[in-house]
């Protein structure tokens, strides 16, 4: 699984802690999954998108479904948002993990 960080100039969350709590070598997480971790709502890690473009999961934003189900998941953490859904900072890693396994 790949973690992409923003530059870290305005962290509202502990980005490293979120990344550290993500599952490692978990067979239920699809290969090639990516997690964009931005410290704030500006979502610089995912090029200012609160839901990643081209994410294949159904319901991943208004336009996500068009990308096709075979593509690995891409999750966006932007401050206390996971794919645009408000999530307390203590639950960010768990929420991302759930989404990775959906």
């Amino acid at each position, binding site marked *: 699984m790949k973690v992409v960080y923003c530059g870290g100039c*305005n962290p509202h969350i502990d980005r490293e802690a979120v990344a550290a709590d993500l599952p490692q070598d978990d067979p239920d997480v699809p290969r090639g999954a990516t997690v964009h971790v931005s410290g704030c709502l500006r979502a610089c890690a995912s090029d200012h998108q609160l839901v990643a473009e081209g994410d294949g999961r159904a319901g991943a*934003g208004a336009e996500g479904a068009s990308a096709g189900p075979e593509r690995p998941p891409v999750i966006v953490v932007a401050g206390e948002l996971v*794919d645009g859904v408000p999530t307390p900072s203590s639950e960010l890693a768990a929420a991302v993990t759930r989404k990775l396994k959906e």
Partner: protein
Amino acid sequence: MALKTPEEFVQSLADLHLQIYLFGEKVDDYVNHPLIRPSINCMAMTYELAAMPEYEDLMLATSHLTGEKINRFTHIHQSAEDLAKKVKMQRLLGQKTGSCFQRCVGMDAVNALYSVTWETDQARGTDYHERFKKYLRYLQEEDLVADGAMTDPKGDRSLPPHQQPDPDVYVHIVEKRDDGIVVRGAKAHQTGACNSHEIIVMPTIAMREGDEDFAVSFSCPANAEGVSYIYGRQSCDTRKLEETDLDVGNMRFGGQEALMVFDDVFVPWEHVYMCGEIEFSGALVERFAGFHRQSYGGCKVGVGDVLIGAAALAAEYNGVARASHIKDKIIEMTHLNETLFSCGLACSYEGVKMPAGNWQIDMLLANVCKQNITRFPYEIARLAEDIAGGLMVTMPSAQDLADEKIGPIVEKFLVGTCDTPVIDRMRVLRLIENLTLGAGAVGYRTESLHGAGSPQAQRIMIARQSNLNHKKELAKAIAEVGKPWEKSRVKKPTAVAG
């Protein structure tokens, strides 16, 4: 449907036969009323510039719904560049009108509702977003003006809507029927309301339990049965009734506000976008306010450009343009104005793509933008008045200047630099008067203070997003707070010889 021409816009407005009251009387021919027409001219400018190739890059956009070219005022922002072009378009229109041109509220309303309806549907399984997109397509294809109506009169501010002695001080649902809802109440300070084809109503505050009937968003035609408008007065407004252009200061353009009344207005379900979902009312308020706070980083800057130009001309006509303190004041005005523009652009370029697919401004920077707007235009206006001199408020009238006997006396004593006609000097001074304390000051000053939310509303948003804990941690790290301190390593400084 093609984009409307300015003439088609004015005719379409006349065809609505709106229920407008002014000075205690119903105004039937409102498009030709001298108090109202300048504000219609402002709105018409949003159509006029859209038809000019040299402004097309800012004034037009491509609809993400139809792929057709549309007026940007009906556009859902599709990128950070779109957000920035919105601000630049607003600056352009402020420059061309020297006034509030009123069409932003509808644009900000549709952009806020676009994401909120999508998120409501995700959470509640409703179909607001599809309804709303259908309506949006109608606005785009017909090139319509929509009034984004948010501010309720609010009555006793210490009480929530459902505890108000008269619940009508907040727009609310009085009846739910199989085919729609019936609403009652009013919206205050409605900019451009009488120049709009459509009304988009949104709640004015985040609603709590018990306020479900007040958590309502819908659209209706501006001439829907039961909707009426009581036109707001402006400083020096009756000068527009005089048979002269000089003393108005800005003859062709002006702003407009009205008290909009809903007297049991029926709204079919297909035009209802929120109906009791209190948990989404706060998001709608914040997003509309955020977009509108960004808007001011464009429109007020454009008007500021006009005022700075007028101040520079006044200095020129007075023969003091080369004085160092005058140059410095013009620089200060420019610095303040461009700072406002920077804020408008910054919150645009730091915007994000929402899960609904539209782009939204950075909320913190948009609120910082508006907070500066509550201050800087006042300082720009003060400097303009300083440069203009007292004559801008003591000058004789146009009738005096036109009088056979008094006119030559006025001309003799109001002369400035030799090559400047007195009438032009008077025109510029009247323009400064208009913008700083006349009818134009409604838009440039008080609207800058209270429009899109009063200063405290921005400060609450700034506090919420300021990330203060992070700042404290930064300070602790630099100051080495918490690190053990060894007294024994402290030495007295050695005196340095020489």
